[in-house]
C-alpha cells in the first residue's frame, strides 16, 4: 500500500486529507495519479492541471518509481513567504 496526502486547494477539491491505495502498475507516480483520477469525480478535478508531486517528502516528477509503504503527496504550487 501507498499513503497519499493532499494539501491546500487540492485537498479541498478532493474532499479528503489522505488515503491509502495499492501500488499501481507500473509503479510510478504518474500511474498512481491516473488511477486516482479514475477513482472519483472529486479526485479527477483535484488532480487536473498544475499539481506538484512529492515522493517521501521530496519534490518529484511522474517518472518517480514507487515502493510499498511509500508516501506520496499532491499539492498546488506553493505560496509561502
Amino acid at each position, binding site marked *: 500500500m501507498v499513503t497519499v*496526502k493532499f*494539501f*491546500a*486547494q487540492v485537498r479541498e477539491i478532493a474532499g479528503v486529507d489522505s488515503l491509502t491505495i495499492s501500488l499501481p502498475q507500473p509503479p510510478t507516480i504518474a500511474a498512481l495519479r491516473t488511477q486516482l483520477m479514475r477513482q472519483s469525480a472529486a479526485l479527477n478535478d483535484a488532480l487536473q492541471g498544475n499539481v506538484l508531486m*512529492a515522493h517521501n*517528502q*521530496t*519534490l518529484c516528477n511522474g517518472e518517480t518509481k514507487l515502493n510499498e509503504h511509500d508516501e506520496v*503527496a499532491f*499539492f*498546488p*504550487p*506553493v*505560496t*509561502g*513567504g
Partner: protein
Amino acid sequence: MVFARVQTNDFSQQALYDELCGGAVSQGAGAIVTFTGLVRDFNAQGGIQGIELEYYPGMTESALNALLTQASQRFDIVDAGIIHRVGKLANHAQIVWVGTASQHREQAFLAATFIMDMLKQSVPIWKKEWQGDQATWVVAKTNDDKAAMRWLSENQDNACD
C-alpha cells in the same frame, strides 16, 4: 548551527537575532542580515482580514533545512536561520523571518535574498486570504517564479545582477 522552525506562535526578532549572533560571532561573523515578512492588509481586489497558512508537517521542515544547506554551500556564510509561521494570522502580523551571518555584508545579503526567493518557490506552504467570511487560496505569482529561476540560471560568480 543553522536553524529552521515552523510554528504557530509569534516570534521575537531580538531573540532570533541573539540566537543567530550567538553562534556566528565566534566563527568570524562581521555582518548579520535579517528579513521579516508581514501580513499585508490588502490584495489586488481590496482589503483583506488576515490570512491562513497550511503546511506539510515533516516535508516543510526538511525543505527549509535543505534550503539552508544550499545557501551554506552557495554563499560564504557562517550561519543562517529561518522561522515560518502557519495557521491563522491577522493583518500586519509577522509571517517569516530569515537571518544570515557572514564575515562581510555582501554574502549575507545575497544568501538572505536567495533563501527568500527559493522559499517562495520550493517550500510547501500555502496561503489563504480572508475577505469577509470568504477565504480564497492565493495563486502562485509568476514574479516569484522568475525570482527563483534567476538563481537557478546563474552561476555563483555573478549571482547579483
